[in-house]
């Protein structure tokens, strides 16, 4: 009897062990771990990973040892962990770390722990590939860091199409009500207008600690059919939209989305409130996004379908300054560090300190006033009203400096673009005028003692380097050169004058010769 019982116990133990082991191991899956920083430079990047059995990756690995393994794509860099055994309740340790030299045995643990995670094995799917997206500054291992809360990685559903949406406000003036107006997605509920869906979480940060927000949106894409999925980033109203409609069918009108499981990445940066142009919405192009979202500069002047934008002087006593990313509007704190009301005058005084206009000899041009959107919490467009006129034969530099300490400060400078060219009057008729540069030789004979034939008035075209075709703006100034008397023979000089929006003036003259020779 004893033997029977012992045997039965042994068999039972063995059976339970088998069950336990097979329950703990649930097949194998693949992980592709993507990483993006805010500089686009990954030359110092290495890894420290543990608790997985993927080939080729494990432990501390410096950039040199990873050079055949680290791959790049339109998001940043990535590493493939293949055939990872899925073990319940286990997590895979994964840190992206920086090395001061590519061959160093250890990273700079104190200063360059770029991401710090324990990836839950729950996200792994047997036989499938899950993509994980990590941003600089993300950290879920709070046992190590004194971070206030975890900043998670994002991961995709291998059985769906995935879209990662991120939003970054360089001024760190995130609205409390920021969220999405969204429709159609399979993993989040629809949101009605006026009630933003608060699904944007902190998923990373920039070098100053400003959060980057993000979310994964899942959908079922059907080639050749309507895919009614869309999203707007906003804080509850038309006037605080950060984007226009971002619709799947529109963004993938020319290219197809990536396959199941891999994410297309749409990255948005704050380009001002009420902005629906979607010029700040960038698909699958980290290089472009990093340049536009994270580096700080004054936008050079450019022509956008006939409208000048960027930084330039529209006329001699104004300079329009356009930053490529927003800065926080001035705030006022009391002794306890609490925000108190700030008047527009106080704001203006602070903002005026940010700007200097310097001539070639470094002399400051007086700034009398500055215009900006006084109601906005973050700013990027300003109009400087100068106390003296700029001389467009000289050069001036506009300098911007927030005046903060360290990494938090933002500074930039740019040569002020001025209109240095006067308009050009080009005569079309009579044909003799076309190439005639001596105004005294531009002569049109007019019949004496007859009514003036209006067809004799010369035709011309006026072009300006900034204002374009300003032919209609030509006028004849009243006075000595505006009168013709066909009753009296003689030469009558007539002046044409035109002025561009800067104030550059061009004058041309010609002569009506009243003569009896013309019948």
């Amino acid at each position: 009897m004893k033997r029977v019982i012992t045997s039965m116990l042994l068999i039972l133990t063995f059976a339970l062990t088998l069950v336990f082991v097979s329950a703990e191991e649930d097949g194998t899956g693949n992980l592709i771990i993507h990483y993006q920083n805010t500089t686009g430079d990954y030359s110092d990047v290495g890894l420290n990973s543990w608790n997985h059995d993927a080939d080729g990756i494990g432990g501390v690995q410096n950039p040199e040892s990873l050079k055949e393994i680290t791959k790049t794509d339109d998001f940043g860099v990535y590493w493939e962990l293949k055939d990872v055994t899925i073990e319940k309740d286990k997590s895979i340790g994964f840190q992206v770390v920086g090395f001061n030299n590519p061959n160093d045995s250890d990273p700079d643990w104190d200063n360059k722990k770029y991401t710090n995670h324990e990836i839950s094995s729950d996200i792994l799917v047997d036989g499938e590939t899950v993509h994980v997206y990590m941003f600089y500054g993300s950290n879920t291992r709070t046992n190590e860091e004194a971070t206030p809360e975890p900043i998670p990685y994002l991961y995709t559903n291998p059985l769906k199409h995935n879209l990662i949406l991120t939003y970054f406000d360089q001024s760190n003036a995130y609205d409390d009500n920021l969220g999405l107006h969204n429709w159609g997605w399979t993993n989040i509920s629809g949101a009605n207008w006026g009630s933003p869906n608060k699904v944007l979480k902190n998923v990373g940060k920039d070098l100053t600690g400003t959060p980057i927000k993000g979310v994964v949106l899942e959908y079922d894409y059907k080639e050749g059919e309507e895919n009614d999925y869309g999203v707007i980033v906003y804080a509850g109203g038309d006037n605080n939209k950060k984007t226009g409609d971002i619709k799947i069918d529109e963004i993938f009108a020319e290219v197809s989305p990536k396959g199941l499981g891999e994410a297309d990445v749409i990255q948005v940066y704050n380009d001002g409130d009420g902005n629906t142009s979607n010029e700040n919405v960038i698909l699958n192009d980290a290089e472009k996004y990093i340049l536009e979202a994270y580096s700080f500069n004054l936008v050079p002047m450019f022509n956008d379908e006939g409208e000048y934008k960027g930084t330039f002087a529209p006329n001699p006593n104004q300079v329009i300054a356009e930053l490529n990313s927003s800065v926080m509007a001035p705030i006022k704190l009391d002794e306890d560090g609490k925000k108190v009301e700030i008047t527009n005058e106080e704001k203006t005084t602070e903002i005026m300190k940010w700007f200097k206009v310097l001539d070639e000899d470094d002399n400051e041009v007086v700034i009398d006033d500055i215009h900006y959107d006084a109601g906005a919490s973050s700013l990027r467009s300003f109009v400087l009203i100068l106390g003296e006129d700029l001389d467009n034969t000289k050069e001036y530099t506009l300098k911007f400096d927030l005046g903060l300490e360290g990494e938090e400060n933002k500074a930039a400078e740019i040569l002020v673009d001025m209109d240095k060219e006067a308009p050009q009057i080009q005569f079309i008729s009579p044909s003799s005028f076309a190439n005639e540069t001596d105004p005294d030789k531009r002569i049109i004979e007019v019949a004496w003692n007859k009514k003036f034939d209006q067809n004799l008035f010369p035709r011309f075209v006026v072009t300006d380097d900034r204002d374009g075709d300003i032919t209609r703006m030509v006028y004849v100034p009243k006075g000595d050169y505006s009168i013709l008397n066909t009753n009296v023979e003689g030469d009558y000089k007539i002046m044409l004058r035109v002025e561009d929006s800067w104030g550059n003036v061009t004058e041309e003259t010609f002569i009506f010769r009243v003569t009896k020779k013309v019948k």
Partner: protein
Amino acid sequence: MKRIFSVLFVLMTALLLVACGDTIGKDGEIIDFSEQYGQKSIIRVWIDDEEGDYMKEIIKEFNKLYPDIEVEHQHKGSVDSREHLKTFGPSGNGADVFQFPHDHLSTAVLEDLVLPLPNETKDRLAERAHELGMDIATLYYDEETGSFDPNNENAVERLYAVPMSIEAVGLYYNKEYITTPAETYEELIAAAKVWNETEVDGRTNAQNGDYYLGTSSHWADSYFIQHIYSAFDFTPFGPELNDPKEVGFEKLDKALLWMRDELKPVTTGTGDTDSIGGGGKFEEGKIPYVIAGPWNMEAYKGAGIDFGIAKLPSINGKETKPYAGAMMAAVYKYSKNQADAIKFVEFLNSDIAMELQYEYKTKLPALKTELLTDNVREDKELMAMSEQLENAVPMPTIPEVQYFWGPGEAMVKEIWNADKDIKTALREAEESYKTLAGLVS
């Protein structure tokens, strides 16, 4: 000798007279070219017209009347205009005329961007513009305190913009299913019950989600369901839609009871307010009716739907009245060319400007019906909307309206989706509005 000299003198004088008489003509003219080629003024207008074709024609016609006003058009979305004016307007780098939808008017006035139009302009427009358009563009406003309270004795009634086009939602029907559209909700609901239970390939239409009547938005969208509220004598902010202290949610009990007990069963069954994509279903040709707006027409035409637009049906014998919305053009308050800008916005109300707007934008001109041109009158869809507008109510334009939509939507969803007690939901909506609008201490 004396005689010879006299004769010579007379001869020379005669010769002199003849010579002089030949040098000065009598049939010529003196021209001052500065009058003909005078200096022009320039106004900049921000109008939503990306290709610029519409504005090119508008400017051409405007210059026939005002050849000395140069109009510079820049395409600017109607939402962007206000934001840009705040920064660039005061320095003269903004626009003299800008465009925006009706619900931006009060905010634009509060932001000190809009010039009240002169009484002469108001009088001229009153003779031509659609009454609803004029209502929407007119505000009682106290410039000193920034108050829109009509009870404020310092508030002055002024016209702040020129309505360019007007619109309202309507009952769109698929002519493949409907020959004569329903005139009452009772009739529609009765037909819906039959349709919804009709089987197609072994499943009922309801089971397939193809409910008889859909909405191109969702059933908690206060803009779309205002027509239902109106049949129960409700308008937000009082009968004049302008009293921020009278949002009036608590008066909606009967309307919401009707929506829950009569409308919900035949439109979403047990589903939520947004559980059925009515717009998509109508566009696919699967359902007979949808409540939609003129902005949906292009999609329906593109999908090949042979549709008509009918007046929204009555409820319990009472007319239903949707909101009327408008796109409007205003003069920037600190424009340096106010007089010329006023001429331009007035011109936008002219016959030719309205005809061009119809031709290029297919929008219903904000004109009195009798002034609509033959082209517009022959447009069945727009004329159906025009007929609907005869009993529409102007959208509220006071700034507090921005706090109405959220609580209004939440209120319907609580009742429709979560079966909340109606009175409780109404009270909560009222409280929520007051909190958002800063009407509680």
